[in-house]
């Protein structure tokens, strides 16, 4: 319980810092939303008028706290450009981005775990070298390039999967997943290599442990030794990375959503940045920060599941 409170306090600090810094940064950028609203041919006076109307001429700090105050009473503001309610705009699109990230991480893990094990089982053996080369090739390509290659092969060439589009979950699980596979794969193909190499290194040292020798002496099969005896003690660094990668993935999804035409937060955010629509930027960034902190909270829970020693320490303290 005390741990949860501690977590919440940290969440509050992270959120405050992230939102304030973005607020400042948007403010430092040349041009503001008033230019966008006034249109191309407007005079400086007209722009100034809009600014005063919106209260943009007041100091940054005051506007920031106004925004924070709004959030506390459930008012996330309204987009200056589209007049859309920010809360709705973000919560409509966030689940889509979240699904994309989750799928990407699941795919990355599904590739990283078996490949990492196969590599660690005989370091510098044939499997290890082949997997290492594949991983190197795969991580060398940025996700947007991988995305285009995947579209070229699987959508245009083979025609197995659609190149763009999005279907809500309400139209069926497979209909929903189908257009998500290529985007998630483009992200996963970069992420899996880091997870795989981390798992490999940690597992190589775990496989030297006495308890692995004992598992062999007990007559356990290699597969069982890898999956049951070695995987959990080997996955701490990998799980830590999994949480940290969420930050990178948030950036990655923005680009991937553009390429595949997925209506996620990414497109909303890019548009908002171009038009300096700061309430929308704030809304997106707050959700991103929430997602990041939550992911790392889940990682902490995963530690306890992975290692019983963490569990008992928690219950004593």
């Amino acid at each position, binding site marked *: 319980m005390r741990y949860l409170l501690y977590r919440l306090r940290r969440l509050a600090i992270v959120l405050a810092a992230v939102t304030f810094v973005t607020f400042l940064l948007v403010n430092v950028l040349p041009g503001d939303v008033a230019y966008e609203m006034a249109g191309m041919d407007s005079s400086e006076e007209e722009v100034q008028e809009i600014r005063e109307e919106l209260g943009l001429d007041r100091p940054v700090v005051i506007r920031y706290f106004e925004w924070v105050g709004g959030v506390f009473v459930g008012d996330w503001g309204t987009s200056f450009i589209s007049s859309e309610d920010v809360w709705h705009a973000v919560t409509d699109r966030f689940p889509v981005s979240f699904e994309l990230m989750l799928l990407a991480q699941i795919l990355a893990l599904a590739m990283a775990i078996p490949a990492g094990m196969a590599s660690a089982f*005989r370091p510098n053996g044939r499997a290890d070298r082949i997997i290492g080369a594949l991983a190197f090739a795969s991580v060398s390509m940025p996700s947007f390039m991988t995305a285009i290659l995947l579209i070229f092969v699987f959508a245009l060439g083979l025609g197995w999967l659609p190149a763009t589009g999005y279907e809500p979950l309400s139209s069926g699980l497979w209909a929903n997943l189908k257009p998500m596979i290529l985007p998630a794969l483009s992200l996963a193909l970069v992420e899996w290599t880091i997870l795989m190499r981390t798992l490999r290194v940690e597992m190589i040292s775990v496989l030297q*442990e*006495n*308890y692995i*020798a*004992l*598992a*062999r*002496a*007990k*007559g*356990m*099969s290699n597969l*069982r030794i890898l999956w*049951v*005896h070695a995987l*959990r*003690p080997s996955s701490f660094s990998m799980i830590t990375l999994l949480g940290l990668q969420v930050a990178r993935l948030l950036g990655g999804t923005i680009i991937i959503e553009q390429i595949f035409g997925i209506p996620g937060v990414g497109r909303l955010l890019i548009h908002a940045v171009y038009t300096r629509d700061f309430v929308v930027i704030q809304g997106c960034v707050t959700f991103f920060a929430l997602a990041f902190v939550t992911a790392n909270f889940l990682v902490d829970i995963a530690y306890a599941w*992975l*290692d*019983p*020693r963490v569990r*008992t320490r928690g219950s004593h303290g």
Partner: protein
Amino acid sequence: MGEIILDVRNQRTAFATARGMLNAVDGVSFTLERGKTLGVVGESGSGKSVLSRSVMRLLPGNSVVPSDSKVILNGKDLTRLSETELRRLRGPEMAIVFQDPMTSLNPVLSIGKQIMEVLMFHMGMKKGPAKEKAVELLRAVGLPQPDVRVNQYPHQLSGGMRQRVAIAIAIACEPDLLIADEPTTALDVTVQAEILDLLQRMVKERNMAMILITHDMGVVAGRCDEVAVMYAGRIVEKAPVRELFNNTRMPYTAALLSSIPKVTDPPHRKLDAIEGRPPDLINPPQGCPFAPRCKFAGPECEEQVPPLEGPGAHQYACVKPLGEEVAA
């Protein structure tokens, strides 16, 4: 003569290292009968542990075993079996207890699971009966509150208790051969005797054969039927335990025995350590490997490696054995 469980013939185990071949076990032969305990004694690096792993066929990838080495367990030549066939024997026919119970149990699996998986894999038991059997085994090895402990993790147990768990794992499938590789070296002196007594009782009760590996002559004395003294990868003296202590022939054995401090010694007496260091196993010296450190060595000791021979059960590899100077 009882039933012969284990017959090791001319076991050689070498490791390919950057400097060349390291002959860790260099031509070891012995047999072991059901119900008997063989003590294997030697200092660090004498090849005791490599010998135990050679018997279990649990050697690392850089090891080399020539084809004339044979390990025959219950009539089956282990050197000719595939990895899958060996796996079926590890547990039901041979089992090992490692030196350090702090690292030989998996920290993320409950001790119950670690016992149950052996029973489920080898005996085809279902989860429920396997758990009952695990509790029963924990009770048999003298772990207090076995029904609670079965769900606990290794870090919640003391070193002595963990070694009891390791023994429970080893005896779970009623193996014919139990190898105890320095089972008490990492434990407090107070629990050493308890663990050794437990091992001895298990061997008696279940009519197993045991190889007890140790560097402690005192451990061997009361608990083994026969003792083999190893030096530089070879057995240098082998005899029934009483005979070995009363009629030591090999100077190395004598030196080991006299290096044990005695309670009757006056205080502050200097320990009788053996001078020098064990030989380099990559470039072993010519002749008897112990000759450079031996008080009795003469030029004849450096001519060739003395073979292990002798009348009856007492065998020794020495050109100038103790107790023969007078007769000669």
